[in-house]
């Protein structure tokens, strides 16, 4: 980026604001007064443009800071304040009652909170990790010279990302139907006609599976939807990252006799680390706030024995259905701390090494 030139640069130039164009010979009829006026106008014009130039950037960037103060900073501060109060939101702000850390103390003993946190972390792992485990090799394959229809494939994987989670969750709700869903239809075909019946016995899967009605199946159902929705996004991200790795590295490795697996293991993976860190951070922040999918799939309840109750869903129900605003605010802070902790762990595990590599 090039910074703006020094202030002297344009002061000498003529401005169209002034009445008499500078550098033109003064008109013969000009009196002292007229010349004065012209000079003042030109000075004023110069001052105005200098002032403008100094003030403009502040004015240009100010909408963000004003909006953030109102809709970002203030809410965050207020939610902290609220988290130390008991308040049911119906009676107006006057009915807020200071309770100290009681909301936080309650959270620590609330089995539903721990359950929702457990659910969220389990979902983070079972829906977050597969996205990357699928996306990285997929991007590697797509990026290798032999795939012609690269854009077609990557676009088709990317498609779920642009469609709404509500619409997509509705579709998956029909796919997960017990008697008439597409997934059970496919599974029973595999069981009866593809000779995979032994596998079903081995796993102990009893057909038909009540995906959204029975507790053990709710998390896998949510996870499959999340993976389906996001693996393409990650693939595209990794694909873009792979394109920044110089081809010469691969060529040199091939000269040294490295196979495809060795190239993947020793060139692609290490050089991709900064992007893995970035993509994992996004996954952590996003999945820890998982709301739409469990809300739609469990019809807003969290499902049988709260198996699909995420922290975000519990927070919503606490605050907006049961109107315990103080507890909900405390919950949002607890969640924030967990997200910070996980992001930090991710940084220690992947980010630091990645950043060092990039720097060196």
């Amino acid at each position, binding site marked *: 980026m090039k910074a703006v030139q020094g202030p002297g640069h344009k002061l000498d130039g003529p401005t169209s604001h002034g009445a008499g164009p500078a550098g033109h010979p003064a008109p013969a009829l000009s009196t002292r007064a007229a010349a004065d006026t012209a000079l003042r106008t030109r000075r004023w014009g110069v001052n105005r443009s200098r002032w403008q130039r100094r003030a403009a950037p502040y004015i240009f960037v100010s909408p963000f800071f004003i909006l953030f103060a109102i809709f970002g900073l203030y809410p965050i501060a*207020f939610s902290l304040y609220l988290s130390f109060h008991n308040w049911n*939101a119906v009676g107006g702000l006057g009915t807020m009652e200071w309770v100290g850390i009681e909301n936080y103390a309650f959270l620590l003993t609330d089995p539903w909170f721990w359950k929702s946190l457990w659910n969220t972390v389990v979902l983070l792992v079972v829906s977050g990790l597969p996205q990357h485990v699928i996306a990285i090799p997929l991007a590697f394959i797509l990026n290798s010279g032999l795939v012609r229809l690269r854009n077609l494939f990557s676009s088709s994987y990317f498609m779920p990302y642009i469609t709404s989670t509500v619409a997509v969750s509705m579709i998956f709700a029909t796919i997960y139907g017990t008697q008439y869903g597409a997934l059970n239809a496919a599974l029973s075909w595999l069981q009866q006609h593809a000779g995979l019946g032994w596998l079903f016995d081995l796993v102990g899967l009893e057909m038909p599976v009540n995906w959204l009605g029975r507790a053990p199946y709710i998390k896998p159902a949510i996870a499959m939807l999340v993976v389906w929705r996001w693996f393409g996004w990650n693939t595209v991200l990794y694909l873009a990252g792979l394109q920044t790795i110089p081809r010469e590295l691969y060529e040199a490795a091939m000269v040294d006799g490295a196979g495809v697996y060795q190239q993947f293991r020793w060139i692609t993976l290490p050089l991709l680390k900064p992007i893995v860190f970035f993509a994992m951070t996004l996954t952590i922040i996003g999945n820890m706030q998982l709301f739409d999918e469990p809300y739609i799939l469990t019809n807003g309840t969290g499902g049988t024995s709260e198996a699909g109750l995420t922290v975000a869903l519990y927070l919503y129900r606490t605050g907006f259905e049961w109107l315990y605003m103080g507890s909900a605010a405390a919950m949002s802070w607890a969640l924030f701390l967990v997200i910070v902790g996980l992001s930090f762990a991710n940084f220690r595990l992947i980010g630091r090494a990645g950043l060092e590599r990039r720097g060196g």
Partner: protein
Amino acid sequence: MQRLASWPAKVVIYILLGAMAALTAFPFYWMFVLASHDRSTIFRAPPPMWFGDAASANYHRLVGTLPFWRNAWNSLYTALMATATTLFFCSLAGFGFAMYDFKGRDALFGFLLATMMVPGLLGIIPYYLIIKWLGWLNFPRALYVPGMASAFGIFLMRQYIASAVPADLLDAGRIDGLSEFGLYRTVVVPLIKPAMGTLGIITFVGQWNNFMGALIVLKEREAYTLPLALRSLQGLISTDWGALMLGTALSVLPLLMAFVVGSRRIIEGLTAGALKG
């Protein structure tokens, strides 16, 4: 780049890629199939895999149960307003950060980047209270005003403007007597149209699909956007999957078509923004 010489390996890879694409596309296909069936054929084993003839009946039940087109208009209006305001405020601020040297710039920009790390859920309850206090419940502006100068958008715009707008051009404009805002309007905006396109699409899609925010601030059916309308349909007539899937299809279709037309640009723009960070 590395090459696999043997053709069996290629066949395996193409089958794998094709199968993944089919798995990705199947739910959309199934959505259109169910949208064209009524109850009697949907609840039949095995489930229908080809289109039926009940689409218009489903449509009549859909618009009979919901103010569907009113909700669709709400979605469109909210998304368009979000897009227009975001493009304006973000490009203006991006211009400010990219092309001016002013006191506190780096600190302000660092602060802006830091705000991107704060999860949205943290302020969700006060957000509702503010909207209620402003009297904006049930108004589209409750959804688009808070995010119209988004940190992400400003970041994207700053990166693009810094690389696409030459500083000399701005000085030339100043010599021609343009005001600073005039520079933005006549010099900068025409040069950053590709980035505007990307940010516009991201914003439009994000707002069109916004569910949680809408759930919190839109309380009346007339004010619902499409995700909320579909959700209310799920509660009302949970067995009428035909009408529900038709509504879902109608809400997804515009974005799908836009994506088919502009997928490459969308993907390139998104990843360029992500990777420069």
